[in-house]
């Protein structure tokens, strides 16, 4: 292991940046709660037409996915190109799989 030794100075810098990070986590969490609530409200409310609801809840689901993956699962860190690439490739294949099964078996 060739990693450099960490000094006390580094630790202090780390803890400061961690505080900023922690705030980011709380904000994200609250945002996720709000978005989830919105999506339930959109469906529960009788007034909103389903032509709007479906794209709206799908959009929210996608935002929730990105928040969870990028902020909570740290895909914004350094050296996460391959996880990012593969996760979203998997997501892409998931979309075509679901679309196929929905569109191509009833005709």
């Amino acid at each position, binding site marked *: 292991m060739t*990693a450099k030794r960490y000094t006390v100075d580094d630790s202090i810098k780390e803890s400061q940046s*961690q505080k900023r990070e922690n705030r980011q986590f709380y904000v994200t969490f609250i945002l996720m709660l709000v978005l989830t609530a919105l999506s339930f409200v959109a469906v529960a409310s009788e007034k909103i037409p389903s032509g709007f609801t479906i794209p709206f809840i799908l959009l929210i689901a996608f935002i929730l996915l990105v928040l969870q993956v990028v902020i909570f699962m740290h895909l914004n860190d350094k050296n996460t190109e391959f996880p990012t690439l593969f996760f979203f490739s998997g997501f892409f294949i998931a979309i075509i799989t679901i*679309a*196929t099964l929905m569109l191509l078996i009833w005709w």
Partner: protein
Amino acid sequence: MQSDQTGVLPPHPEKATLEGRNKILGLWFFIASDVVLFASLMGTHLALRGSTQGAPGPQELFHLEYVALMTFILLTSSMTSLLGIKAMQRYQFKQMQTWFWLTVLLGLSFLGLEIYEFYQFVIYHGLGFETNAFASSFYTLLGFHGAHVTFGILWVVTLLIRSRSQGITTYTAPKFYLFSLYWHFVDVVWVFVFTLVYLMGKVG
């Protein structure tokens, strides 16, 4: 390997060793693969959700308040597992344990609610696994998610128990980190389950 115990501890103990980094990378690939598994099951369910053969369908079965409660519980558990990891990175062992036990508790209540929901479908609506293609695909998809939750709970409980004496080291840290990644992923899957199965089922 033991260098962290002599010098100042690294701020990311989970990534301090090659083994740790490899495990995290591998778990990511596993997650990418699991995405396709869930997509296949979800696609199957969406294709078959109209095949109720006269039995009650999504509109009659699903109660949104109930699903919302389950969603908030799982979302919160995702947050607690993240806070556990943050505590781990600060080497606060006690705090970390607390957060993870809280995660276990939330996971268990999610499971309890899910089982109760199935119980109601079976008892009040007579909707068994064999009733029709809609039921088969619904229980299969939800069952796979539930199995992931169960496995996650077993995993973290084992970890918590066996790391009691060790504390946070570059050997134990990656294991907790892996669990938290997995747990977030289980939450991501739930996001799509509640959107595509419950909400879209309700919209029709």
